[in-house]
C-alpha cells in the first residue's frame, strides 16, 4: 500500500476525511514543534502556536488548491502566527532559555549527549539575527527548500541565500568548526 502525499491528505481532509487530518498532524507537527521551540522562549508557547497553526489549517482547508504544497503552506501560517505572537507580546524573537534536559537529573547518557547537542544548536541559533533564524529554521530544521523559504518569508531567493549562508557560517563559528557535524 502506498502512502498518500501531504497534498493528497490535505485534499482528502478538505473533502471531510478526518483521518487524513490526524495523519497530517503526525507528519508535520513534530517538525513544526521543533522549529517553534527553537524560536520561542517557552516550550508551552511553542505548543500553543502549533495548536493555533493546525486550527488555522482547519479554518483555511477550503483555500487549499491543487498544485499547492502543504508544507510551505502550513509553515507560512505558522510564521505569520509567530510574528503576531512577538508583536502582541511586544517581544523580540529570542531563543529558548529553558533548554531540554539541562536541569533533568533523570537524563541517561545517550540522551544526555543528544540533549547537549540540542542545547548547542540552540545556543548557535541564538547568535543569529531573527531573519537569519527564520531562514535557518525553515531550511535546516523543517527541511524546506530555499526557493520555498523565500516565498514564505517574503524575500527574494538571493536575499534568502545570503541570509542562509551567513547564518550557517555564524552557527559554525559559534559551535566551533569541528564540534558539531550536524550543521550543514
Amino acid at each position, binding site marked *: 500500500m502506498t502512502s498518500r502525499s501531504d497534498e493528497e491528505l490535505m485534499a482528502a481532509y478538505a473533502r471531510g476525511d478526518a483521518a487524513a487530518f490526524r495523519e497530517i498532524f503526525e507528519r508535520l507537527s513534530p517538525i513544526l514543534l521543533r522549529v517553534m521551540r527553537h524560536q520561542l522562549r517557552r516550550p508551552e508557547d511553542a505548543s500553543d502556536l502549533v495548536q493555533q497553526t493546525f486550527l488555522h489549517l482547519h479554518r483555511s482547508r477550503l483555500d487549499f488548491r491543487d498544485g499547492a504544497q502543504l508544507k510551505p503552506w502550513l509553515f507560512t501560517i505558522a510564521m*505569520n502566527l509567530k510574528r503576531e505572537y512577538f508583536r*502582541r507580546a511586544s517581544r523580540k524573537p529570542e531563543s529558548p532559555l529553558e533548554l531540554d534536559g539541562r536541569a533533568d537529573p*533523570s537524563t541517561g547518557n545517550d540522551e544526555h549527549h543528544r540533549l547537549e547537542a540540542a542545547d548547542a544548536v540552540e545556543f548557535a541559533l541564538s547568535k543569529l539575527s531573527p531573519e537569519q533564524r527564520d531562514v535557518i529554521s525553515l531550511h535546516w530544521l523543517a527541511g524546506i527548500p530555499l526557493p520555498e523559504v523565500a516565498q514564505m518569508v517574503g524575500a527574494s531567493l538571493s536575499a534568502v541565500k545570503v541570509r542562509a549562508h551567513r547564518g550557517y557560517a555564524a552557527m559554525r563559528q559559534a559551535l566551533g568548526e569541528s564540534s558539531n557535524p550536524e550543521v550543514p
Partner: protein
Amino acid sequence: MTHTRVVPDCADVAEAVSRGEPLSAEAQAHVSHCRVCQASRDAARPASGDALFARVEAAIGEERGLLARLRSLPTGLRVLGAVAWAVIIVLASTLATPRSAYGPVPAQYLVLAVTVLAILTALAVRLDLRPLQVVPSGHASVLGMIAVGLAVPVALAVLPAPGPQVTSLPGVGDTPAIVGCFLIGCGAGTLLILGLRALDRGAHRSPTNVLLAAAAGGLLGNAALELHCPITTTVHLLLGHATVGIALAAAYGIAALRLTRRTA
C-alpha cells in the same frame, strides 16, 4: 498503627506517566537510576504529541455554528461576501434615509465620489481578509491603505464640490444635520466591521487589521453619506462625514484591545 512512606517503583512511575501527572521527587530519584523507567519514559514521549493533538481536536471541535462556517469559507467567497454585505448596507441606508436633493451637485461628481469610495472599501476589505497562508503584505502597504481610508473623506470634505453650495437641509439645524450624518455613517461602518469580524479567521487580533477594518467601515459610511446628504459645506463634511472613519478606528481599536486582553 504506623504509616510508612511508600517508595515508588516502576509501576508507580508508569502509572503517573500514563496519567500525565508530574513525578514526585522520590519517583524522579527512582527514574534516575532505573533503566526500565528511563526506557518507559522515552517510550511515553510521543504521548505529548497525542496530548497536543487532543488539544487541537478540542479546538476544532469548538468550531461550530454560523460564524465557524463563515470563517471557513474559501477566501474568495469571504471577500465576495463582505463586498456583497457592503452593497446591501449602502442600499439599505439609501432606502431608509434617501438624499433629499440630487440637483445641486453634478451627477458625474457624485458617481465619481461613490465609485472611489467603493473601490477603496473593496481594497481595504480584501486586504483585511487576507488569509494567513499568504505571506503578509508589507507593513507600509497596510498602513498606506489605512491612511488613504482615513484621508480620502477628509479630502472630499476640503476640496470644493462643483456646483452651487448646499449649506443646510430645510427645517434641520446645522448641528442636528452633522450629528445625523455622523450617526448614519457610523451605523453603516459598524455593520461592515461586524461583517468583517464574522468572516475573520483571527487577523483582527492585530491592531493594523483592526484599523484596516475601521478604515473600510469609514469609507463605506462615507459612501452611504454621499447618497444621503446633499450638504457641501466644508464644516459639515469635516465634522459629520470625515470623522466617521476616525471615530470607528478609535471605538473599534478600544473594543478589540479589551476583547484581546480578556481572551488572552
